[in-house]
């Protein structure tokens, strides 16, 4: 199988891997870079569990070839915030009970971050639109929307 070298900046760190032309960014993140927080829910762009920010756009990692991410910046949930320096979204999600099984959470928080970066004060409809590519089966979305709204208000302060 013909392989190519790629270099991808994952959460601020340049990482190298050898990939085939079939490998997706999801494959590279999980198999080569140990980024287990990027989840595989369907592998074909229907669920959003693999959402990452590629340069400045939220995308499905399963619908991007690893080769297409060469030389670019990828932000996963780990790059959104840490226990020492949490993003308001992370704080809000926990405090509002917006996390149940947690499997949709990495993709959901990343999508929400991309939304707030572009639109710092979304109304509830805009929030729902912004996360419409991220399926959740546990929460019914209500607390996720509340958490995102709350995080946007926190950022104002």
């Amino acid at each position: 199988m013909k392989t190519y070298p790629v270099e991808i900046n994952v959460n601020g760190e340049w990482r190298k891997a050898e990939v085939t032309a079939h490998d997706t960014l999801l494959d590279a993140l999980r198999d080569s870079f140990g980024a287990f927080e990027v989840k595989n829910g369907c592998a074909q762009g229907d669920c959003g569990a693999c959402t990452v920010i590629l340069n400045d756009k939220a995308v499905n990692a399963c619908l991007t070839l690893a080769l297409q991410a060469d030389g670019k910046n990828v932000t996963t949930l780990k790059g959104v915030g840490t226990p020492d320096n949490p993003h308001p979204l992370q704080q809000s999600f926990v405090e509002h009970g917006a996390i149940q099984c947690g499997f949709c959470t990495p993709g959901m928080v990343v999508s929400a971050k991309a939304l707030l970066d572009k639109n710092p004060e979304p109304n509830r409809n805009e929030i729902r639109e912004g996360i419409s590519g991220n399926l959740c089966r546990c929460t019914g979305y209500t607390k996720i929307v509340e958490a995102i709204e709350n995080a946007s208000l926190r950022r104002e302060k």
Partner: protein
Amino acid sequence: MLEKIKKKTVTRPDYRIIGKPLPRHDAWGKVFAETKYANDYKLPDMLYAKVLRSRYPAAKLLSIDTREAAKLSGVAAVMTAKDVPHNETVTRFGQTHKVGGFEGLYRVLAEKKVRFRGDAVALVAAKSLAIAEEALGLIKVKYEPLEGVFDPVEAMKPGAYPVGEDESNVICSYKVRKGDIAKGFDLADVIVENTYRVPMVDHAYLEPESGVAWLDDGGVITIRAATQVIEHFRGIADVLGLPHNKVRVIAPMVGGGFGGKEDITVETYLALLVWKTGKPVSLTYTREESIIAHSKRHPYVMKYKTGATKDGKLVAMEAEMISDAGGYVFLSPWVLLYSTVNATGPYDITHVRVDCHAVLTNNTFSSANRGFGAPQPCFAYESQLDEIAKQLNLSPLEIRKKNYLHTGDSLATGRVLEHSVETEQTAEKAMEALGSPSQPGSPSEKIGQGMASGMMSYGRMTFLHDTSRSYVSLEMDGSVTVKCGVQDIGGGQASSLAQIAAEVLGVSMEDVTVYIGDSALTPLAGTTTATRQLYMSGNATYKAAMAVRDNLFNKAADILDTAPENLDIKDRKIFIKPDIKHDPDRVLAFDDVVKACAADGVQLYNVAQFNAPARELIDFQTGQGQVFADFTFGTHAMEVAVDVDTGKVNVLKIVACYDVGQAINPLSAEGQLEGGALYGLGYGMIEEVILDKGNTLTPSLAEYLIPTSVDAPDVKTIMIESGGGVGPFGAKGLGEPSCVSVAPAFANAVSDATGVRIYDLPVTPEKILKALGKI
């Protein structure tokens, strides 16, 4: 009558930790990307497994040639039925209590014949997923396709294609007989008779079935899998012919279960491949595999005939339910039993006749799915009620109020509902919160409002003599450890135990660490199913924590020279209750008492077992007897806007009102109600696994549609806390009850908007247009 309707104002105690909307302890790990799910685990030398599945829904399995596949470089093992030590197992229903009558035959890998399209035929383990997939393609299977049967009504007929090993495809049948049904219909002024159909639906958890297994020290096959039942280690050991103590199952945080991870999924395949190769093995189903090959919710055909007097009193209900079990038995008999008990809903009906049958077909097999047989009849009985109401010129709420069961009344099965039954209150509050109808946005838009009440048990069937165990201990420094076999599938099963232990021991949630889900190391707590964990493990944890507290209090009482009953505990201090006269500085620091206990060898840990009420099997000919410990009752109210030109429905308002007994954590309780509302809305509005002669036409999430964030509004939740549950602190279980009455509320709202009724779910735009006579 007036006595029962009088609203009870129950003031719940203000606990320190219980009832507070505290962040779950597992939420932080999930939001900081620390939590490792089943397949976020990589081990050195790990192999990747794939399952070869049947190409036909019904066929003789003539031969399997694995030689070429086994020779492929990088392949470590190829296994078929002949390689499995005990390929055939028979499950008699009930884990702790032997139940006769019906058995389910399972084969780990198909042998002689295949019974549905996803039937597992062979296993491969290889150095990479790509090699495993290539090997699958090299396995040569010879099938002789058979005609199969795909309609449960057809499958019931004598002479139908035999799906299993018996001539008859009927797995089991149950009855309820109360009063005299003919007499009942004679008394009725209005009779409504309809046939309802509900489809096959998928759990659609975000995390597909997955696990990693390895051979641990001492030859223990260790399986770390997304499961709701670690107790399967016994069945897995039996398949391998190993002693039970040589198989260990660990459940990490699970990415959604909903009953789909209740039966064995990947565990036995992993165990076999580890046993064969000696190496670690990883197996994850693709989403397509999950939809095609794993369990579903039973499709039902339900004939309901309901009779009422002109005053709206229900006098007769006759129901016949036929459940499509698919290719294998699994939990179909139990699901059917739930349907039988739930057939009449939370209503008082004088004369009842129910007949239910579960039937094998060559469709994908169905088993546990959130609600476990309660949602299906709810769609029927709640639709029937609205039709009767219409004929009698009563509102949906009015007719229900004339028939609701209350605390102390009996179900049609003769079971007295001794714990709180507040359905009527939930209905009044839900409709009040729904408010007056919105204004239509255009001439082609019709607004409709609908409601539905439902009931569902929490806790397992009582003839299973269910138990749970939990271990609570105080470390030397006063921090608290809880160990419990509970499996956490997202409902906060683990966190609620921390909350309970913290309340009892006067510490904060942060002071408690919870270890869960390890069949070798945590006391077994039973399945995370049947909405039983808060009830069972919550009570067990409470008991264990109280035992530890009692030891602390005994020591403190000694030190303070008082009686243990006079003591209380709060914020890491043990003190004499304020209403007892005492010296104000007789207060002890929690840590000091812990140290004193340690110094004197006083045990500061306890493993407690909680036993659910134990009953015997009911009489399946009359359906009379107690099957469940308690039920949760609730109502959904919905408002929709229907575009009568295109059939499209927009959901404008959803209200969920439940008697939750006591919300241990309001955020978690609301979360169940909100999530349950969307789970049920999907069932009512868009979900359907479509099969064509046993072949799945909707194998991906692009074809099998579940609601997105823009398909529903915020869910408004109203929680009544009656304190009348049998769970800890008077809590009732919510996980499954929360989704039971949503689909009928949706269907009733659409009916209100359009003036026509849809009798089969999902209620799609096309069906609406057809009912309106437009196509």
